[in-house]
């Protein structure tokens, strides 16, 4: 089929044609009080991007494509007559992809059914008994099998398959509601106990009492809190989006990586949706900013020689755009206990919410626990103000323990020890 698509494109006058086909099988299960539902989806989607000699590409997307609809698709984009006069980026499309073996597929997806979902619900209900006050509001579970194929008229012909398991639980506690979600490529890695403990910890830290801060303070960001800030500033690591990229020296403990080549991670792929293969990319190495992620189009417009292999399509987009694969702060060899020991006392930040954006600065509302001499004490609430540069400049230490969270893309962080200055009332400046 793919060969026919490419040759059809050539025959109607396009100089380069790319075809991206994705077949999905998805099953969703939901339980909310008396509401029980299951939904299954089978889809087969084709996205075509076609280039004339000059000008921007044109494209179309079809569900369950066949030769007739593909012909119609090409005749539609051919009739437009909108080629430009400028050189385009078709020459940057890859001509081959090497075979990569990657552990992102779990065979157990075939045997998952409503019975196993009910077992999962029972397990969660059982674990909840150990967390008094925490109530279960709803559970959603989904399994997804994805098969991707990318080909182009330059000779590329590559494919891979991948599984994803997502568990989403809503909890209530003292009139607060929290939703916790975990996505894994292997079912065995979904850990309801870890999710419930995480929810309990987060809900317990939600205090309305603003902390009375009088002086500068050490903060230890949990992986979850750190990931929130990292995501907020992630545009600075993305070519063609907002954000500045100055060559300044950040602390040498800090290295930031995008790596699609990690086993079992949800952001892992052997190649991106344009067929570009990449591995570990240091966006910041030992405090030095090195690179930003890009797809072929942004690389071309920003006069870069090649894409970083981060061109991905969303469910609704026909053309790729830059997105991280597994994006994370590189862990060190220090344990969390060492960070707490070095800090002496301070706040262990567990939950962060964005409150305000002012030019390049952001104000976050933060919840966490005071700690002193290794002991974790009462919950506190405070605010902190920071910018991309000042945040990363004030990171003192990075821990060994590392966690990934899937929020649009896979993003990870270890614990971070950060220096914060007292600004006024319960507001700190990082």
């Amino acid at each position, binding site marked *: 089929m793919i060969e026919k698509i490419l040759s059809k494109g050539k025959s109607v006058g396009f100089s380069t044609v790319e075809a991206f086909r994705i077949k999905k099988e998805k099953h*969703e299960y939901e339980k*909310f*009080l*008396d*509401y*029980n*539902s*299951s*939904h*299954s*989806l*089978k*889809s*087969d*989607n084709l996205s075509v991007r076609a280039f004339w000699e000059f*000008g*921007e*590409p*044109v*494209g*179309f*997307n*079809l*569900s*369950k*494509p*066949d030769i*007739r*609809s593909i012909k119609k*698709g090409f005749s*539609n*984009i051919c009739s*437009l*007559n*909108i080629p*430009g006069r*400028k050189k385009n980026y078709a020459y940057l499309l890859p001509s081959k992809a090497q075979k990569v073996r990657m552990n992102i597929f779990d065979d157990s997806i075939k045997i998952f059914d409503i019975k196993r979902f009910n077992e999962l619900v029972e397990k969660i209900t059982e674990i909840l008994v150990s967390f008094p006050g925490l109530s279960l*509001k*709803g559970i959603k579970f989904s399994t997804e099998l994805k098969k991707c194929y990318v080909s182009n008229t330059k000779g590329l012909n590559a494919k891979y398959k991948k599984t994803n398991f997502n568990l989403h639980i809503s909890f209530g506690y003292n009139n*607060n*509601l929290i939703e916790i979600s975990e996505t894994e490529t292997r079912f065995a890695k979904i850990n309801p106990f870890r999710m419930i403990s995480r929810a309990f910890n987060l809900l317990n830290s939600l205090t309305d009492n603003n902390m009375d801060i009088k002086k500068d303070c050490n903060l230890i960001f949990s992986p979850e809190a750190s990931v929130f800030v990292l995501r907020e500033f992630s545009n600075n690591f993305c070519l063609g989006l*907002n954000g500045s990229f100055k060559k300044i020296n950040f602390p040498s403990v800090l290295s930031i990586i995008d790596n699609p080549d990690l086993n079992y991670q949800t952001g892992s792929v052997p190649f991106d949706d344009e067929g570009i293969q990449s591995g570990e990319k240091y966006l910041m190495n030992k405090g030095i900013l090195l690179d930003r992620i890009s797809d072929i189009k942004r690389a071309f417009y920003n006069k870069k020689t090649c894409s970083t292999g981060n061109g991905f399509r969303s469910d609704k987009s*026909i*053309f790729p755009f830059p997105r991280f694969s597994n994006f994370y702060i590189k862990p060190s060899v220090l344990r969390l206990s060492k960070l707490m020991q070095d800090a002496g006392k301070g706040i262990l930040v567990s939950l962060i*919410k*964005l*409150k*305000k*954006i*002012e*030019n390049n600065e952001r*104000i976050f*509302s933060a919840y966490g626990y005071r700690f002193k001499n290794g002991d974790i004490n009462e919950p506190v609430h405070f605010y902190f103000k920071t910018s991309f540069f000042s945040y990363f400049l004030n990171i003192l230490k990075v821990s060994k323990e590392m966690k990934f969270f899937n929020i649009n893309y896979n993003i990870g962080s270890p614990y971070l020890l950060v220096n914060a200055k007292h600004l006024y009332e319960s507001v700190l400046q990082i």
Partner: protein
Amino acid sequence: MKKFSVDLIEDNFFYNFTYDSYDRKEYIFRKKTGILKREYNGSWNSSSFELNSTNDARAYISKDFKSSNLDKFETNNLEFSPGKLLRDNEFILNFLRSLDLKEWKIVFRVKSLNRLMINNKNKELRNIFVHYSMIIKLKLNGCRNYIEIGEGSTGSFKFNQTGLSLRIKDVINNHKNQKKHDFKAKIPVVLNSGDGGIIFHEILGHSLEADYIYQKLSPISIHDVGHQVISKNVNLATKYEGDIFFAKIICDDEGVLSKSSVLVENGILRNLISDIYYKGLLNIKNSGYSRVEDFAKVPMPRMFAIYLKPGHYNAQELIESTKYGIYAKEFGEGKTYFNKNSFFFNINEAYLIENGKLTSPLGNVIVKGNIMEALNSVDMVADDFRYDKGISYCFKNGQTLNVRVGQPTVKINNLFVNRDFND
């Protein structure tokens, strides 16, 4: 609840053409066809399949079904010519080129949605929705984000280019000349007629959705039906005579037509926004508000259109009666947080009201408040009812839908105004 089943067969087209300040043109089109089969038998089971053509749906639907409608289904008669769009909209393009902007982008879109619902009695119902839009994205000097201004229509690509250029001019001037104000206490906010209705969609419409009520997330409870729980100045309906926006949508995505269009009458809660399932769970009379983005997803209670009915004040009286407050003219995105009974809204063009007169431009501000307090603080409703500009969208549980809102100028007391997001 009784056993129930419905098949939804869908054929949709989407065309998108983007032209930007760098003279780049990008064109895409998408065709998606498929079937969603749903069945309730103690619990819901549904499955979606993509199809090459609607005729292929026969393999999935009941053998008793003899409709010939499937053959006539593919009705893609839409005309979408990027070259013609650029020629027809030369006025607005030249206007954009003449402005001192960091960047601009113009997006032309047309979406056509064709649905056939077949319920367990083999009753067939057909919905058609075609939506044309032109959205202009502006990046002002010194601003990080795009400001979006646009128009949508269910008829054709004919838009009011002069009106759009004036709106763009006003937004740019408002941002250029903005003066920063610190509003420490709650103040009155006068919402412009038309698009301002999106606030009622967010804070009242969603509060009336049966799934949120059943899950006890909404600040409104089932026991509130029949009682006055919000300001008596609020009259909310799902139909407004003469509006043709959803004219070819005759039923919801379960094949049900709502029996009543009244949601709130003089502050008294009359009906909820429900689908068949929640109607049964909550033991209410009305459904007809089940919607789904496309056949690959699961439907849920959603709004089509909501209209705040006009009152008897002149719009100018609302501003004149305000000593110190703001006038919200152009609206951006907003969000409702049911767990905190709060909401926030971006206002892209706002003005300060001092002693009954519009004074300083304020640029972009955020209006926020407590849902029930805001609904009980609807102080004055004018008589200048208008529909939105045709590009209102609603996001819920990962699904985006076109919605329609309409309202006259409205004054709500007790809202916070600043540049913060909600905590």
